[in-house]
């Protein structure tokens, strides 16, 4: 899932400027699951903003609403009236949700309340870790299901580098060395052959390096009637 963290309150206040009517928009999907931008967080943030702006001497009128998915037009249509009434919309969805609001309601001014951090999973209660960088050309089949692009600090395809020690990466003792994990897993499965061959330079054109990406599925597209 997409994980995110709330921006510091001061930064959020700065983004809201001197507007009077603020609408906090939560999202019921990824950011709800990672406790960053769901209904509960939307209510809490709205309440914090009401309180702090009151203390600051220029109280804002802050309301909140949460949609099932901020990244789909049909859910956004449901809150069109609230959005149009607000001077500024504070989206606490991931960056996709913020952009969806800006794109769907060009007249509205929307600012982000979260920092979208990574694609990852909760490894234990309260801890999330990055697992995928959406490079568009999955290599997990040769690395034992452990991603060297996302989990090696240098995204090496022929790791590990000389900075691997006691199972952790040179950058931080709390960061596991992805290539130690890959090595251990392949050794355990008697599959080390998979990493003895040189992995050639990666085609990064399927990643962001090739420009903003787009998927077209003609089989799913609705046919448009010829005029």
């Amino acid at each position, binding site marked *: 899932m997409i994980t995110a963290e709330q921006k510091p309150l001061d930064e959020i206040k700065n983004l809201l400027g001197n507007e009077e009517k603020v609408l906090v928009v939560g999202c019921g999907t990824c950011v709800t699951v990672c406790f960053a931008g769901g209904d509960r967080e939307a209510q809490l943030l709205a309440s914090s903003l009401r309180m702090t702006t009151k203390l600051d001497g220029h109280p804002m009128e802050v309301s909140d609403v949460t949609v099932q998915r901020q990244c789909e037009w049909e859910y956004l249509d449901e809150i069109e009236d609230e959005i149009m009434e607000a001077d500024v919309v504070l989206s606490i969805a991931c960056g996709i949700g913020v952009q969806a609001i800006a794109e769907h309601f060009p007249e509205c001014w929307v600012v982000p309340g979260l920092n979208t951090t990574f694609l990852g999973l909760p490894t234990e209660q309260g801890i999330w870790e990055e697992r995928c960088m959406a490079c568009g050309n999955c290599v997990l089949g040769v690395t034992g299901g452990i991603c060297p692009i996302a989990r090696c600090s240098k995204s*090496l395809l022929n790791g*590990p*580098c*000389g900075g*691997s020690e006691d199972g952790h990466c040179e950058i931080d003792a709390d960061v596991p*060395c992805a290539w130690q994990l890959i090595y251990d897993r392949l050794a355990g499965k008697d599959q080390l052959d998979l990493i003895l061959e*040189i992995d050639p330079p990666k085609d990064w054109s399927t990643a962001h390096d090739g420009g903003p990406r787009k998927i077209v599925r003609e089989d799913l597209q609705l046919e448009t009637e010829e005029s």
Partner: protein
Amino acid sequence: MTTNESTNGYLVGSKLERMLKAGHFAVTGELGPPQSADGDEIREKAALLKGYVDGVNLTDNQTAIVRISSIAAGTILVQEGLEPVIQMTARDRNRLAIQADLLGAYALGMRNLLCLTGDHQIFGNHPTAKHVFDIDSIQMVKMVTDMRDEKKFQCGDEFKGIEPRFFTGAASAPFADPIDFRPYRLAKKVNAGANFIQTQLVYDVDAFAQFMEKVREMGLHEKVYILAGVGPLKSPGMARYMKKNVPGILVPDEIIDRMNEAGKPWAGKKSSEMTKEEKRARSKARREEGIQICIDLIQQLREIEGVAGVHVMAIEWEEAVKPIVEGAGLYPRPSV
């Protein structure tokens, strides 16, 4: 005759290649370019190494700290009559920049190259930088040896003119984890086309001998010249720091003991209680022992089958190279 030197049976014909091919025990050194535009600093350090080493490694933004580039520093070395080994990391350049810089480096007279992954930028003075790592060190070795041998750019396009011909090296960290995989990773570098290997600093000769045993078992020592990394210690603290904090470096207690012993006449005295002269004398005694340990290591490493030379890393202490090379009986350098 073009500037292509791939004649007389040499891949490149660099002094380092000729020295190794002739079967001489090679000695390379290392020079860290300054964190300023001071070319004279490079010239001064080069003067300390001239005649004592067969090639001088020029670090590429070592530990992710901005310095004069390795190729620019290499150009100064060529002017000074030394042979550079330019280091190139995958951290700061993508495949376009690496190839472009190597075309230029060859045109400027550089003939030896060491391909490295590069330290993560978090260690350096620009920790907020975006890194590159478009390719890794193994892919880099393949790319540059294909440029040389296949006359092709990485994309597959063929050269129309002169190809850059580098005697191409890679690094090996024999004691980094997972330690069992290290000889196999070395094999990948050899298969990628590496001509020589410079290892991480070796202080534990027994552990290195075990690594070399596996290397010989795999026949790698017959395909690549292996230069064992050595470096003089300055103090017991430096030895302890490396043992504890630098991944892939093993420092046996015996060596730390020798460094401690060297400072024994001043034992029990706090630095704050010592006079300037006492501090200087203790530092001198420790440094002399550090140099002697380095000489002893070279002599032991030389006995290991498959070790073709040593890479002496005395960064910011280039003065130490002369006594080390002389002390190890490796001076004068053979002419090839």
